[in-house]
């Protein structure tokens, strides 16, 4: 834990242990806590502070079953802070505040089929959930990962995706919106994979993360397959400044995404989801 119990607004410096380029605009930072410990739940996020520039919420993408203080974040260059973050190197220091927010329903999913539908960088917040599913593979029935990326070059965690499909009895389907080069995999939006995937809708839990439009159509497709809103979980994104429910920026209907989310049981937010400018 890196939230000061006395002052949840204080950030804690972490050393950057490694930087990896994932795609042309995404990168993974491996961080090391000073005391060698950092525990979190899959789905939670940290506020990462670049000295003097600012703080942004980034989901945690490391393995929660190994609380060895190894903490990884995959981020995308979309603003001043992430741009500065992308230029950071091993040995630099980054401020960490967290973990914050709700978790993926991995306990609720025990004994069921698990369907994970993600798009783009939405795979990052689901990676900890996948690690946990793999670590306790026998507790779950079918595990299906449906992942959509823009192009073959923009597929995150390529080696791991292969490993998950090959070694860990996960059904992994990747699709791209635009095929390039020698791509021989699926082409088409990720929602098209849902109707093809093999799972038992009457006993499945779905976890969804991606751009809001992608999530909306994914939920529709899952509904067509027979997964009800109570068994669909989505991870929402809104402007988060404080992450502790004080600043008001991430409000979404009667929720603060930083505290009540980012992972929501879909039926909780269904009345507000997809409404214009809420």
């Amino acid at each position: 834990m890196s939230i000061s119990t006395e002052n949840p607004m204080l950030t804690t410096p972490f050393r950057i242990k490694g930087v990896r380029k994932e795609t042309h605009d995404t990168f993974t930072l491996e961080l090391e806590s000073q005391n060698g410990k950092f525990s979190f739940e899959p789905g939670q996020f940290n506020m990462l502070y670049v000295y003097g520039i600012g703080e942004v919420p980034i989901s945690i993408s490391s393995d929660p079953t190994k609380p060895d203080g190894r903490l990884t974040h995959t981020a995308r260059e979309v603003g001043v802070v992430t741009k500065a973050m992308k230029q950071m190197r091993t040995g630099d220091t980054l401020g960490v505040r967290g973990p914050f927010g709700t978790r993926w329903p991995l306990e609720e999913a025990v004994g069921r089929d698990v369907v994970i539908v993600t798009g783009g960088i939405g795979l990052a917040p689901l990676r900890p959930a996948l690690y946990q599913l793999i670590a306790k593979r026998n507790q779950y029935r079918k595990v299906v990962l449906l992942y959509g990326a823009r192009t073959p070059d923009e597929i995150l965690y390529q080696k791991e995706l292969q490993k998950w499909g090959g070694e860990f009895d996960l059904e992994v389907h990747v699709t791209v919106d635009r095929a390039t080069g020698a791509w021989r995999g699926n082409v088409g939006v990720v929602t098209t994979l849902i109707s093809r995937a093999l799972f038992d809708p009457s006993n499945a839990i779905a976890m969804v993360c991606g751009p809001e439009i992608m999530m909306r159509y994914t939920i529709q497709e899952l509904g067509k397959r027979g997964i009800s809103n109570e068994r669909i979980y989505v991870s929402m994104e809104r402007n988060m400044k404080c992450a502790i429910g004080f600043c008001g920026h991430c409000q979404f209907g009667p929720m603060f995404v930083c505290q009540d989310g980012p992972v929501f049981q879909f039926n909780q937010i269904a009345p507000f989801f997809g409404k214009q400018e809420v």
Partner: protein
Amino acid sequence: MSKQLSLKMPKARTERAEESKFILEASHLGQLLSALIGKGYRAIGPTVRDGAIVYDELHSLRDLPVGYTDEQAPGCYRLEKGGGRAFFNYTVGPQSWKKFLHPPSLRLWKADREDHRFQVVQEIEQTTKFAFLGVRSCELQAILIQDKVFMGGQFVDPVYQACRDNIFVVAVNCTKPGGTCFCQSMGTGPKATVGFDLALTEVLEAKAHYFVLEVGSKKGAEVLAEIPYRQADKKRIQTANRILARSAKRMGRAMDQTNLKELLYKNYEHPRWKEVASRCLSCANCTMACPTCFCTTVEDLTDLTGQHAERWRKWDSCFAMDFSYIYGGSVRRSVKSRYRQWMTHKLATWVDQFGMSGCVGCGRCITWCPVGIDITEEVRAIRGQTSKPKSPKSYKEKN
């Protein structure tokens, strides 16, 4: 609402609060102020500045707006020195006590860099002990609401809590409600019922000027012990009650709270939002003046050498365009959606978040709106009870 709030109050504050009433002669009010200052409090109360009543440090009773009255209407505030001896013959001004408990601008921490590392230094400020003199019932309720925001959840704002734990509250019951007041209909006034250490009702008669005083806490009783007072007699208590009963009937406005939450949840697409957006300037005055609005942003700064960084927290407003910015753009791009967010939060989603309405009926958002948008009127419009927006009438009449 007040019932629900009182459950959250520490026992000492509610214990026998209603039991005994005392008389404090107006001529002894100065001794109350001195007693508070003597106990190490920084006394804050209403005072006149820039043509308005604001809250600032009180050194003596001369700092109070004695003899002043105010006139308030949508988009209109007028201060008049009518003379007379009354200390509290006006209602709330543009500011609220939140500027002390939840400062408009606050440094959260500092950091110093050395090579590739930086060290974060927590701000350790001496917490000021504030004595708030002249807190109206609506404002007390507003403080209780912000308590819930900053201290009632998973996380506690240490800055707010440190300040909050040390305040002394002298409430003043409202004997003259303003033209934009509607606390009566919100169940938040005009008489303070919870959350005070001492509460005063000012009575000014031809030959008498006194306060009927109530004690709300042990702290209050301790201060009372240091000043001259006497047991209140039935007649004076009745006089004070009569004044307050009359005050409750003279509210400038009212808000019907019946099924208000459900109403607003149902009406995200009501045409009124577009209509109000055509008048709203998105200036954020309402949110700054509101005693319960709590939104903030942060600013990260460095000095020129880059070796020293700071993080500041500042009041923000949901009316600001970039308030809802996520990469790629803002979620609430239109004024319509921002006004809807503000009002729906205040009156509906707030209830689900904090178990109470976010509005205390103080009327500030109506008075200080440059175009005179009236939240009570907007609610009526959503209910379908009116169609024409009111212009800031009294302002025009005066000029």
